[in-house]
């Protein structure tokens, strides 16, 4: 089967000028990073590189073993969309390997450029900053690599090294700073969060005639739901869907204004912030004395979510200690026959499903969303086999790329998904990820695909008979 997009000709430096805006001092102050490029930055970067090599088996092994067979080369949406050779996963990783060879291998120290070993100079740093921020850490290349080399591990290490010498992007650092200030990525202050929930409760009353609640900060609730803040603000259908779901199940639940976000931008920057951002979830669960934490429809939240026990655990103060995704929870309830469903409520649309990268390739979440959609819709169609499940394409904006200054990259990266969706003729594309939900409407508009983007639970609650 031919690739969903023709494999492009190599266009050197096609996207070399598309870089993210650099971080602002006010944000850096809040997240423990240097406010500007540190003195002696080259030396400091290599020291940090050495530390990362000592700490991460993945990095050490992936620096050494790539055979440059090229199996990954045409699998990245950013290469398919742009043709820039540095967007081939193997070439992206070589940007880091060339520095590794120069400073950490005898042959690189001796023979330099002849064996592909290069100095970490200003030009190299600029390449890192450009291309490691054109990678969405989506793990797709790892699926095709004979050794499972995951470029996400390499990109994450490169970003951590850069952050340590004072080089990072405005979007990511701004979001993390907002999380520490307001509890969520969008910077919604607690009173506004509560207001939004009240407003949505009124909507629910008008739509269903029932008193369906969206509880906030309720101590002693059974479930703490950590949903993306975008669900409270933009994807409100999904927020209301959580309310209907728990109402139908008769389960008490709450959101937290201390931690009303699961999405973890620390994942895109460095370990310290990954851990600190995720800690809020556990702290909120302790304060509210809940029995379990359920992660909402958010891809990166789930990626960080499955690390919670490791990063911030043990979680043994919870009755159900391990992380649970809302799709796992709902699918389990479906199996128990907990809902009365009328599938014909969704008969007006043909539905397809987009696997977000993190749940599909890092979070073992492939069947549950499909089970929910199949139980809620009569008309469900899969996209091409090579564009779904573990071979799904990134929406084009994951891992800190959802920022407007690199719009051409985002649209190019989203093209494979757009074309696969177009081919199904679906009216609705359902996906459990806030970043996908923000990015895909723009992608579909750009590539002129007539489809509405929806959450997974939005479809379920339409079919639930209350």
């Amino acid at each position, binding site marked *: 089967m031919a690739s969903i997009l023709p494999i492009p*000709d190599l266009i050197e430096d096609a996207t070399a000028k598309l870089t993210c805006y650099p971080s602002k001092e006010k944000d850096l102050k809040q997240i423990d990073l240097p406010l500007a490029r540190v003195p002696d930055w080259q030396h400091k970067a290599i020291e940090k590189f050495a530390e990362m090599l000592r700490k991460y088996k993945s990095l050490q092994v992936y620096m050494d*073993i790539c055979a*440059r067979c*090229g199996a990954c080369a045409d699998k990245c949406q950013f290469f398919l969309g742009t043709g820039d050779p540095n967007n081939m996963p193997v070439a992206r990783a070589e940007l880091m390997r060339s520095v590794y060879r120069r400073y950490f291998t005898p*042959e690189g120290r001796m023979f330099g450029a002849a064996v592909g070993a290069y100095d970490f100079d200003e030009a190299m740093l600029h390449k890192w900053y450009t291309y490691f921020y054109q990678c969405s850490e989506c793990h797709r290349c790892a699926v095709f690599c*004979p*050794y*499972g080399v995951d470029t996400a591990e390499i990109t994450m290490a490169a970003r951590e090294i850069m952050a340590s010498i004072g080089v990072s992007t405005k979007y990511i650092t701004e979001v993390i700073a907002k999380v520490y200030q307001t509890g969520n990525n969008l910077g919604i202050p607690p009173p506004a969060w509560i207001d939004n929930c009240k407003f949505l409760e009124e909507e629910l009353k008008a739509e269903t005639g029932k008193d369906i609640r969206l509880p906030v900060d309720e101590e002693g609730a059974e479930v703490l739901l950590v949903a993306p803040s975008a669900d409270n603000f933009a994807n409100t259908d999904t927020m209301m869907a959580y309310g209907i779901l728990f109402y139908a199940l008769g389960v008490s639940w709450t959101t937290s204004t201390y931690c009303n976000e699961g999405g973890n931008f620390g994942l895109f920057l460095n*370990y310290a912030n990954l851990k600190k951002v995720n800690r809020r979830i556990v702290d909120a669960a302790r304060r509210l004395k809940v029995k379990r934490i359920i992660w909402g429809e958010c891809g990166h939240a789930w990626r960080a979510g499955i690390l919670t026990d490791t990063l911030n655990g043990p979680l043994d103060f919870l009755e159900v200690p391990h992380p649970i995704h809302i799709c796992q929870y709902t699918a389990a309830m479906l199996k128990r026959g907990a809902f009365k469903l009328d599938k014909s409520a969704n008969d007006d649309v043909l539905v397809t499903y987009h696997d977000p990268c993190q749940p599909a390739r890092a979070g073992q979440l492939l069947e549950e969303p499909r089970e929910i959609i199949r139980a809620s819709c009569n008309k469900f169609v899969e996209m091409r086999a090579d564009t779904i499940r573990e071979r799904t394409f990134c929406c084009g904006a994951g891992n800190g790329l959802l920022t407007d200054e690199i719009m051409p990259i985002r649209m190019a990266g989203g093209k494979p998904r757009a074309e696969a969706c177009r081919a199904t003729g679906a009216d609705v594309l359902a996906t459990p990820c806030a970043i996908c939900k923000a990015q895909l409407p723009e992608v579909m508009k750009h590539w002129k695909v007539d489809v509405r983007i929806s959450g997974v639970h939005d479809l379920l609650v339409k079919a639930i008979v209350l």
Partner: protein
Amino acid sequence: MDTPTALWNLTAGALIGMAYIVGLIFIVGIVYRIYLYLSTPAPLPIATTPAPTTVPGAAARVAGDVFLFQNLLKYDKPLWIGSWLFHVGLALILLRHLRYVLYPVPGWVIDLQTIGMYAGFLFPIPALYLLWRRFALKRTLYVSGIPDFGALVLLAAIAGSGILMKYAAHVYLVDVKAFVIGLLTFHPVAPPAQPVFIVHFLLVLALMLYFPFSKLMHAGGIFFSPTRYQPYKTLERRYVNPWDP
């Protein structure tokens, strides 16, 4: 002693010395790299999903990678055929060569002789295919450097000189065996006085010297890829980060 004999003795001595030095670098280099892979912690669970949920399942996944190259088998058939034949050929050739090292020669090594010979003759085909592919695809050409071509050319040259010995420049098995066993038992004797053998042997030494410092370490590293060897057990028990428990 006449001049040619003196020269030969010098050459033989140099070869033996080189063999020991290279052998030492090869062993120490590989042991060091494997130790590095073993001892470097894997702080977070990062299995590529869908992943096996048990340790035996994960072991089976790694075995599939090692013996079947399963990701290539699933998604890149031409590369799979080329690389799998290349590696199986290499393995058969190496096993066949055990007859130069072991005494007495075990029955299964003798049984391997015929197929090992065919593997040797045919080996240049997948090797040349991989070399051709490296040039033919713009994507692989872009990321290929001297070491990538070098490794293939070196292996092809070793195979070529080996085949040559079988037909054009015959070497007695007994002489080769005396030389190799002499080296292994630290009672070195002179190598067979056959230029093609000397070339073959020198090329192998070059490969051994190159091995621990190159991408050829994928041979050992494939066992240490966390995305592949980790089972997905997040729902079962806590994964502990050794440097941040």
